[in-house]
């Protein structure tokens, strides 16, 4: 089993009572078809999905209460995102994985071990926001020590950048790969094809895992009114890229789909296009109300039913896990909102890095040239 990313490993599973060994004997697994997850791993994934949902629910509440101006995120993508975050080789520099994410990836970050607090600091526009010092929308993460490059709201530009980190990794050797994530609507942008093309130059194939989370909508536009009715994964065919579409709402299927894709990229140093079919439970963002869409399948509820039905956890254990996650999210909000806001003196900070060859700005930006 791959090494798991976690904040404080090893973590207890939610603190609730677990019915160890009653229904599921040790070593038995939950399965989809021929694919299985150990109970331990399934419960680790489930717990991170629960935490992610709790954080998203609390985030939506904040956007409605006025504590935050805007919410966007990934309720409905928890299975895919958590399974990705748990399998990332986390670290700094080309030996480790680079992450070019989009703005629905809270589950990836929690899976990697980011605290809820660091998410809420950005949502609450605090000066302590480690990603952007209160400058960017929520979910626009940036963690240099984990190779998480800044998330932008500009759809799909990350696909034009991914070949660059992968190129350095290919030269560096080792197992580090570049993971780039976007939605299916963004594949209409040329940058998506840029990534396909730049990662398949003969002799210079690049270790890029292109992950397309397909929720079938671009804001309000139905995929099949603006795209041909074929899998996004087929876009890899003309480039000879290995590709696969998996059920991104089933943690068992998507865990193994990501594991296969990552193993291929790590070993073969070539790209892989993985499409995961996911839900969008709360619409595009707070701009469309962030209301729950009852027509969308809920991967968290489905996984909960399976785990309970198969005896991996009981109802009380689930409830305890949810209570813990909600308490953690509530505490993060209380703590973050007590922290300072940016000051007017911060406005220009971090525009320029120090330069020994700049006569006007040897340090940071200080206003128009020559203005004193």
């Amino acid at each position, binding site marked *: 089993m791959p090494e798991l990313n976690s904040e404080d490993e090893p973590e207890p599973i939610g603190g609730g009572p677990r019915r160890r060994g009653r229904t599921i004997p040790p070593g038995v697994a939950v399965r989809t078809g021929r694919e299985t997850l150990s109970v331990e791993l399934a419960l680790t994934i489930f717990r991170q999905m629960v935490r992610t949902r709790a954080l998203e629910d609390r985030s939506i509440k904040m956007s409605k209460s006025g504590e935050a101006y805007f919410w966007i995120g990934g309720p409905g993508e928890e299975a895919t995102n958590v399974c990705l975050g748990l399998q990332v080789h986390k670290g700094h520099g080309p030996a480790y994985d680079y992450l070019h994410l989009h703005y629905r990836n809270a589950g990836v970050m929690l899976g990697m071990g980011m605290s809820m607090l660091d998410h809420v600091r950005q949502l609450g526009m605090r000066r302590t926001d480690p990603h*952007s010092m209160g400058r960017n929308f929520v979910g626009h993460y940036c963690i240099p020590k984990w190779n998480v490059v800044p998330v932008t709201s500009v759809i799909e*530009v990350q696909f034009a*950048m991914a070949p*660059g980190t992968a190129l350095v990794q290919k030269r560096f050797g080792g197992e580090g790969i570049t993971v780039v994530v976007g939605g299916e609507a963004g594949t209409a942008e040329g940058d998506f094809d840029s990534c396909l093309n730049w990662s398949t130059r003969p002799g210079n194939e690049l270790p890029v895992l292109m992950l397309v989370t397909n929720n079938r909508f671009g804001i309000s536009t139905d995929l099949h009114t603006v795209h041909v009715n074929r899998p996004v994964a087929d876009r890899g065919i003309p480039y000879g890229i290995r590709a696969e579409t998996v059920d991104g709402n089933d943690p068992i299927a998507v865990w193994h789909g990501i594991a296969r894709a990552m193993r291929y990229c790590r070993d073969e140093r070539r790209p892989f296009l993985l499409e995961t079919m996911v839900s969008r439970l709360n619409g595009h963002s707070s701009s469309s109300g962030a209301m729950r869409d009852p027509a969308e399948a809920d991967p968290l509820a489905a996984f909960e039913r399976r785990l309970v039905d198969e005896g991996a956890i009981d109802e009380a254990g689930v409830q305890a896990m949810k209570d813990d996650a909600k308490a953690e999210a509530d505490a993060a909000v209380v703590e973050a909102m007590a922290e300072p806001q940016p000051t007017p003196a911060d406005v220009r900070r*971090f525009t*320029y*890095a120090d330069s020994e*060859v700049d*006569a006007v700005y040897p340090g940071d930006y200080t206003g128009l040239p020559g203005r004193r």
Partner: protein
Amino acid sequence: MATLVQAVRLALHYGEEYLGVTDVFGEDVGPPLGGVFTATQGLRTAWNSPLDERGILGTAMGIAYAGGRPVCEIQFADYAFNVIDVMKVAGNQRWASAGGYPMPIVVMTPTGAGIRGSLYHSHSFESWASRLPGWKVVLPSNPLDAYGLTIAAIKDPNPVMLLLPKALMRVKGDRPLPGEPADPDELSKMIDAPVGADRAGWKPRWPDLPEYVVPIGSANRVREGEAATVVSYGRTLPLCAAAADELSKQGHTFDVIDLRSIFPYDWDLISQSIAKTGRLLVVNEDTEVTNFAEHLIRRAVDEHFYDLLVRPRALMGDHIPGIGMNQVYETNSVPQSYHIRDAMRDIAAEAA
């Protein structure tokens, strides 16, 4: 004496050998061509990219994220327009990440008219570039400055756009690069790939040139005078200097300032000169609506209103969609030497 494009090439070579440049890339940048203007011929790290400007800048950003030092080329500034949002993102990465990710990239691209390039090889880009906060933008007008600004662009750990005036690419300067062979034919034999021959076995013999930096944000007063301040850069700069020489015979002497950096620009030098002359003319060839010259004039009005003896003015390109192929179009679209001479004479002669 090196040409401007040879100077850029020598500076890129210096960057590869001594400043950690890891990649010089873009369309036709690698062998066999070495760039449509030969700016990248013979460079060790030069490689050909797909014909994809967004991919070029995006990949440069990715290389920089992972610790590399890329120099990439957009083949003509005319083809940089579909990259402008990626440029915006490159300029904001350090700010957006509150210092998390610096963005040490150099983008070089030929700009402006003067090579009979018609609609799609004549556009100016500096006014667009000046609206990209987080970037630094330089534009040399001679080989020595091109050498020093290219090295500065590489050494600066921020995104730097190196705009190269197409019309001056093959023009020699009047100041040699430090350490360049005295015989220009010798330099050409050393570093220019043979034309029309098989280049597979060709390797440049690089002269050993030292580091030379033109600081970003430092302008150069190329003529000194009293009648007026003329600020220009790129293709029109030598035309302004030549006009100043001609008009000096009629008793009008000018401060001619080669701006060299569009941003940050050397306001101290401009400001001192305006205080002395009381007259300001800015000359460039970009289209005249929302032209970078207008910003300089705004500051001149703001900060030197009571120093100005006559209205400040700008001589710029016509606000038309392109430059036509027939030379009638080009000579009547962007400032030519006689337009510049007349504008300089007018501002010098106008009664205060």
